[in-house]
């Protein structure tokens, strides 16, 4: 049957899968993890919108505390008879594995939809490969791979149909990002066909097997050696039946919709001699390549594996032409130490058995290799390289393709000039900023074009590793035939650069093919622009004979009130220049898309975008390209020549988008990276930067305290140091008494500033005569400011670093003189978390160890290319690591265990060596108080002296042993850092255990009240009445009071802080927590873009959160009991503001008040009531007398 005329749509793979999964299930147990989160979010949204499944019933969605929890809930729901599904990836799948064995062992039908993603090894990666599903391949789940968006939609249904029939649970997987996030044109399966695929009889059978006290059974017994083995073998026939069941389901679907699939689909020459075997999106790349090569007469083919488990050797052999002489298995995973990766091993076994049992005459040569780990782009040139390798008499086994392995020489040579793209496919690339709306507009363009009768479109989007000022590269293809090509564009017929400054940073025209069109958003006119381009760009334009157009979209957007959103303007230009659609038709469609996209936000927004479209083309000009290069400057290198070797050879190329070219030999073998490399990345993303009015400044330190990116620095120094200061270097006499010759200076790393403006908001010093002028003010950044900034900062850096022992740590003013050892991180502009992290680094940086939970903080702290943790002038600084999301408390506790153990060892060895190194020194070291900075400095000096003595004791075993742990003699500051998703949900069990451990360890929870890193899903910290993903209708339960839970232990130091409301209390809490010789936990209010606020108002929102009593500031210090004081201190006054006056400044609350006013009013009232009640409880605690009874009353035997 020909393909049925179905509803054509454009969507990404996640959406395509979610459409099916939602329709054929009753329960979804979910937890967010990239790149699968959108499937769960869609399911939640559809439930909120009242959308029903194919039986007309509601779907129950339950967000859990972790994937482990989701798997448990799913398991229970299956046992209770509901059709249940989940969506996950990577580490999430790992947490599900224990339940997967159970679910498969119990023959419970379910489908886990997996956006396959790399597992964290020496580094985390959010990108796609098969290491997660391969790690779960022994669970007993069937594994079905989809290679494209269309397939993911179709095979999702096949999986659900087959699991019901076979009773074997399925992992349906598709490539994370490449398929989950690629937008493509597909034909939706009509609901009646979905219905036809799912047998109601099988559904009822599943229900009949459910646990039911009306006819009770037991499942999940414990077995002994006598029968366990047999019970494992008892399921064999079910697994054996799966291939046929799946093929039947594929055939049935094929009959219904006209798209046909096989367990192993073969493409290529019928008499192929060389064949590849692989699965996932790479199979589509290989299919296109072999088609091209076969058409050119090469005897090549490819087998796309769809059902990988159970592995049907019979079906594989049937698919493989008898003519085949050599086969290569390509695995998108790595199994160190194995003789080959899993698919290779299966292939070898299948062929060997086939030959041995006479089903196949000859044994082809078989090689296996790895490709595409962590979404490494896999294109036709790599496919050809493997096929070419198969021609060789001695082809390489265990090869890699797509990298340069200059260590073990596993990699194949690739001829990058080879490609298979058809000429009738328009290939367009767009370089934009996250904030300018480029990606959103391109997603619309894909839809606009694909909705046009005979056209197909594909969109894939590449994001960089920063959350602010991020570069986005959009890869769009349009053509008359369905578009496979799941790889990045190699040669583009249209290139648009939506930000002029990229011309000096990125090789935008690298992929432009000869005669391509180049559209540049330029503040310079068509006549001026040429001279503002670097030489290499001019050369590319001339050599490639590019048609070059400019538009000042930035000014145009500003004029019509679109701010920085140039998207609709540039989209209009794209359609006008590319000619993909007739111009008038394109404009009408853009407007229709605008109407659709923005009408939910109101007429004003629609009208502005219309105005952008209408004014666009009259500002678009073609540039007359000169014949010769004339520019007198070149695109500067990413890092200067004087940067350290590692930065030049590894960090720099990564920053330059050339990381793919870095050979294996340059990459650290164990994930260890130098700190401090963020300082080499001058991103220059801010339009506005702060300038200082030294005459108005009161030197309070508030600005640098709140700066999320450590851009603002302060020093005091002797006046004499000013000699040689560059013109424009500002300083003022320090305003402390007793320092007549001391100067104070505030300086800015303007190239690292994100322009958030929090410093100005925090500045309390206002001019008495100039309206609106403070001691720190934002100004438009221009080249002069950058040049001045470099000069003055250069001088500032050379000024002596302030002696930590002379700085007053007790107040915010003093802290500004402590060097931040966390700088220029990748967080959002105006981030509400990073000021806390920076403070940690300032106070304890040179002896700090950080265990960081996965989440925003691990990403802005540790997402390459650069590293924001850095060192002081002595080379000391925070040592940082991220283990996982779920285990961070335990991980950090491990730091403490090792430190304590080695400290004991060091102390005992020291005592043993006392005669050799001197009793006085040993006693001084062992009895040293190490609380104040001067004491710590003294101890460092003593340990330094000890080291010198130990070196003299060469050959002395005890001395050598002591040398290996001697650094522990300086007190370590160990911090467990993470967000609320970790602390309240996934890591709560471990956190609780650490709270109970009594060890000297500190915990910082930066609470944004949602899973910020994965896009704002609700956590147990999400407040009542706020909307979030997975709480689209507003959270209906109160947030967890982690502070009181911790207080209940009685011996844990607990603080609740908000740096924007009371920086001094924040500082005190950090210092007290660190000094407390037990467990300390700080809960830190962190404003976030997921709250729906203008981030500039972050500080005032913090103030309102405190003033309304929503976020009471408190400190519970068990040490106070020992000195007869009450341990519980309430640091913020009684509520003076209504909760509404805080909450309704935030979109997360306000949206509910508009969309569901009655619900919002009810929740608001409830929230207000709870705030007052809680405050009253806190007040009662604060009024309790000191003594053991007080803390006990607040503990288990107390009020809660």
């Amino acid at each position, binding site marked *: 049957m020909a393909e049925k005329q179905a509803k054509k749509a454009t969507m990404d793979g996640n959406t395509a899968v979610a459409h099916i999964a939602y329709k054929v299930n009753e329960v979804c147990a979910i937890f967010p993890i990239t790149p699968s989160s*959108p499937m769960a979010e869609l399911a939640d949204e559809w439930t909120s919108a009242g959308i029903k499944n194919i039986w007309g019933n509601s779907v129950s969605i339950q967000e859990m505390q972790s994937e482990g929890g989701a798997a448990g809930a799913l398991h229970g729901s299956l046992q209770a008879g509901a059709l249940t599904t989940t969506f996950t990836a990577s580490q999430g799948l790992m947490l599900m594995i224990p339940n997967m064995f159970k679910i498969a062992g119990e023959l419970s039908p379910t489908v886990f939809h997996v956006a396959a993603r790399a597992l964290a090894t020496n580094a985390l990666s959010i990108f796609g490969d098969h290491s997660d599903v391969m790690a779960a391949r022994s669970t007993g789940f069937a594994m079905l791979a989809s290679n494209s968006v269309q397939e993911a939609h179709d095979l999702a249904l096949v999986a659900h149909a087959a699991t019901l029939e076979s009773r074997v649970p399925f992992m349906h997987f598709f490539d994370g990002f490449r398929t989950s996030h690629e937008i493509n044109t597909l034909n939706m399966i009509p609901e009646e066909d979905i219905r036809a695929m799912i047998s109601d009889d099988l559904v009822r059978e599943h229900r009949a097997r459910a646990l039911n006290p009306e006819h009770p059974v037991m499942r999940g017994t414990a077995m002994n050696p006598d029968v366990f083995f047999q019970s494992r073998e008892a399921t064999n026939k079910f697994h054996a039946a799966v291939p046929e069941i799946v093929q039947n389901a594929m055939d049935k679907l094929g009959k219904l919709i006209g798209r046909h699939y096989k367990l192993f689909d073969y493409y290529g020459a019928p008499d192929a001699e060389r064949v590849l075997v692989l699965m996932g999106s790479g199979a589509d790349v290989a299919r296109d390549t072999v088609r091209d090569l076969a058409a050119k007469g090469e005897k090549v083919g490819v087998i796309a594996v769809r059902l990988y488990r159970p592995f049907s050797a019979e079906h594989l052999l049937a698919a493989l032409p008898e003519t085949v002489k050599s086969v290569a298995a390509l695995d998108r995973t790595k199994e160190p130490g194995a003789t080959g990766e899993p698919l290779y091993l299966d292939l070898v076994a299948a062929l060997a058995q086939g030959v041995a049992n006479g089903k196949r005459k000859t044994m082809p040569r078989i090689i296996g290799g790895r490709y595409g780990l962590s979404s490494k782009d896999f294109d036709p040139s790599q496919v050809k390289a493997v096929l070419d390798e198969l021609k060789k008499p001695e082809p390489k086994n265990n090869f890699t393709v797509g990298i340069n392995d200059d260590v073990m020489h596993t990699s194949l040579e690739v001829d990058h000039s080879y490609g298979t793209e058809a000429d009738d496919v328009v290939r367009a690339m767009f370089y934009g900023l*996250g904030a300018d709306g480029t*990606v959103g507009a391109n997603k619309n363009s894909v839809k606009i074009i694909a909705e046009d009768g005979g056209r197909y479109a594909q969109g894939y989007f590449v994001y960089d590793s920063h959350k602010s000022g991020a570069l986005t590269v959009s890869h769009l293809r349009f053509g008359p035939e369905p578009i496979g090509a799941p790889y990045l564009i190699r040669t583009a017929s249209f290139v648009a650069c939506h930000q002029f400054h990229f011309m000096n940073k990125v090789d935008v025209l690298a992929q432009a093919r000869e005669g391509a069109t180049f559209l540049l958003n330029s503040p310079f006119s068509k006549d001026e622009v040429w001279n503002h381009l670097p030489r290499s760009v001019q050369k590319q334009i001339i050599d490639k004979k590019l048609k070059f157009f400019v538009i000042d979209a930035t000014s145009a957007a500003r004029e019509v009130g679109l701010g920085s959103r140039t998207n609709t303007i540039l989209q209009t230009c794209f359609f006008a220049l590319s000619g993909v659609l007739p111009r008038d038709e394109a404009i009408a469609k853009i407007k229709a898309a605008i109407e659709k996209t923005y009408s939910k936000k109101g007429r004003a927004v629609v009208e*502005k975008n219309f105005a952008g479209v209408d004014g666009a083309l009259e500002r678009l000009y073609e540039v007359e390209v000169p014949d010769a290069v004339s520019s007198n400057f070149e695109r500067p290198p990413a890092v200067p020549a004087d940067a350290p070797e590692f930065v030049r050879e590894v960090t720099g190329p990564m920053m330059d988008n050339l990381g793919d070219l870095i050979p294996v030999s340059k990459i650290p073998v164990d994930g260890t990276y130098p700190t401090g490399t963020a300082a080499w990345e001058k991103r220059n993303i801010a339009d506005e930067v702060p300038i200082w009015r030294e005459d108005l400044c009161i030197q309070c330190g508030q600005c640098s305290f709140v700066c999320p990116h450590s851009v603002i620095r302060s020093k005091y120094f002797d006046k004499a140091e000013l000699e040689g200061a560059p013109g424009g270097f500002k300083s003022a006499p320090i305003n402390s008494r007793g320092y007549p010759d001391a100067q104070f200076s505030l300086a800015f790393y303007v190239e690292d500033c994100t322009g958030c403006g929090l410093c100005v908001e925090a500045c309390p010093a206002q001019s008495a005569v100039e309206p609106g002028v403070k001691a720190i003010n934002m100004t438009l950044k221009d080249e002069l400011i950058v040049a001045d900034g470099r000069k003055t900062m250069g001088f500032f850096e050379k000024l002596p670093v302030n002696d930590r022992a002379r700085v007053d740590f007790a107040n915010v003013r003093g802290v500004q003189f402590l060097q931040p050892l966390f700088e220029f991180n990748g967080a959002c502009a105006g981030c509400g978390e990073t000021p806390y992290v920076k403070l940690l680094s300032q106070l304890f940086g040179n002896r700090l160890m950080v265990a960081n939970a996965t989440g925003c903080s691990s990403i802005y702290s540790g997402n390459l290319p650069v590293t924001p943790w850095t060192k002081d002038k002595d080379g000391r600084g925070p040592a940082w690591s991220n283990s996982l999301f779920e285990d961070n408390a335990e991980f950090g506790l491990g730091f403490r265990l090792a430190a304590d153990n080695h400290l004991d060892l060091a102390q005992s060895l020291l005592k043993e060596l006392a005669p050799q190194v001197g009793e006085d020194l040993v006693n001084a070291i062992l009895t040293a108080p190490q609380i104040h900075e001067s004491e710590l400095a003294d101890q460092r000096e003593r340990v330094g002296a000890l080291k010198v003595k130990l070196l003299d004791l060469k050959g002395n075993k005890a001395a050598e042993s002591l040398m290996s742990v001697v650094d522990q003699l300086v007190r370590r500051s160990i911090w467990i850092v993470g967000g609320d998703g970790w602390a309240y949900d996934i890591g709560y069990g471990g956190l609780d255990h650490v709270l109970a451990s009594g060890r000297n360890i500190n915990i910082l929870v930066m609470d944004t009240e949602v899973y910020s890193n994965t896009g*704002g899903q609700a956590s147990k910290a999400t407040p009542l009445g706020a909307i979030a993903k997975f*709480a*689209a209708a507003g959270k209906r339960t109160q947030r967890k009071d982690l502070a009181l839970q911790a207080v209940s232990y009685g011996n844990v130091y607990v603080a609740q802080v908000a740096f924007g409301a009371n920086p001094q209390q924040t500082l005190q809490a950090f210092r007290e927590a660190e000094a407390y010789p037990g467990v300390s936990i700080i809960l830190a209010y962190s404003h976030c873009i997921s709250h729906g606020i203008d981030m500039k108002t972050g500080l005032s929102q913090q103030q309102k959160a405190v003033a309304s009593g929503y976020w009471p500031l408190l400190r519970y210090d068990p040490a106070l009991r020992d000195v007869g004081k009450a341990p519980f201190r309430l640091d913020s006054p009684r509520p003076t503001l209504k909760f509404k006056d805080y909450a309704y400044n935030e979109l*997360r609350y306000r949206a509910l008040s508009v969309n569901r006013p009655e619900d919002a009013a009810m929740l608001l009232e409830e929230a207000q009531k709870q705030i007052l009640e809680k405050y009253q409880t806190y007040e009662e605690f604060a009024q309790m007398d000191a003594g053991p009874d007080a803390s006990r009353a607040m503990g288990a035997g107390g009020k809660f």
Partner: protein
Amino acid sequence: MDMKTNYLGLSLRNPLIASPSPIGQQIDGLKQIADHGAGAVILPSIFEEQITREQEMVDALIGSGSESFGEALSYFPAEAEYAFDSSGYLRLVEQAAKELEIPVIASLNGTTKSGWIDYAKDMEAAGAQAIELNIFYVPSDISLSGADVEQRYLDVVSSVVSAVKLPVAVKIGPYFSSTGHMAGRLVEAGAKGLVLFNRFYQPDIDPLNLSLDTSLELSKPAEMRLPLLWIGVLSGRINASLAATTGVETTDDVIKYLLAGADTVMTTSALLRHGPQHMQVLVDGLTEWLKARGLASPADIRGKLSHAKVENPEAYERANYIKVLQGFES
């Protein structure tokens, strides 16, 4: 005592109207006002600029951070998107129209032509019995002539009047070269009533922080002289209802406006100061006052001291000024 009053063709049980205030933002507040005897109630204004600004803000907040980072292509569920529009307001109109026994007048505040008509139609559909257009326009563009500004008012009025069947009252400020003539033109453009006067949001200056202070002060009785004058001048001379607003604190103030010729008298500040129950004080006070003088209805005093009826109309004109000065001299 027959307190009935005709305003914009609507029959009111008495001439006292609660003008827009925060009390009227919730149905409970409106009910209290009605329960305390108001003749009619005007709902809080829809502010055109507020709607536009909030729409843009929502767009910016939802957009910020989206499509920038691979792990989080958005930060809000689709349900967070909302068009801040008149729907919440219209729900209030609908509820008020259904639950209150007194006429419900909806109010619109804006300065441009766009948007007005749709909002007005929606208000009509939601059950409002009249519309008050509050035209609040400070011509800070000093190249605009007086005629330009007046035309703008007239355009707004005629576009709204032609879009709805409801009676439309226009609330204006006093700052026209010829306020009376302008009043007449507004009536010609279709206004069924004039509300004198709105109080422009005049910013104050904060000398400590060197900033503009945009907070609003409640009106005081001393401010009622200006509307009193123009009510007096216009009463009986234009074919439209006249509503007096500004500075009504006591029964005496109500009576003054009626004597000048107001059909209805509106109050906001007094209700905010003393609570919705103050409406009853005014209604009862007026009733008592009329009763004490043996009068049968407010109509008996309406316009008795208007320019048209007063024995010495020059008192409304320059003579009044001279008299004041003479008064000071004596």
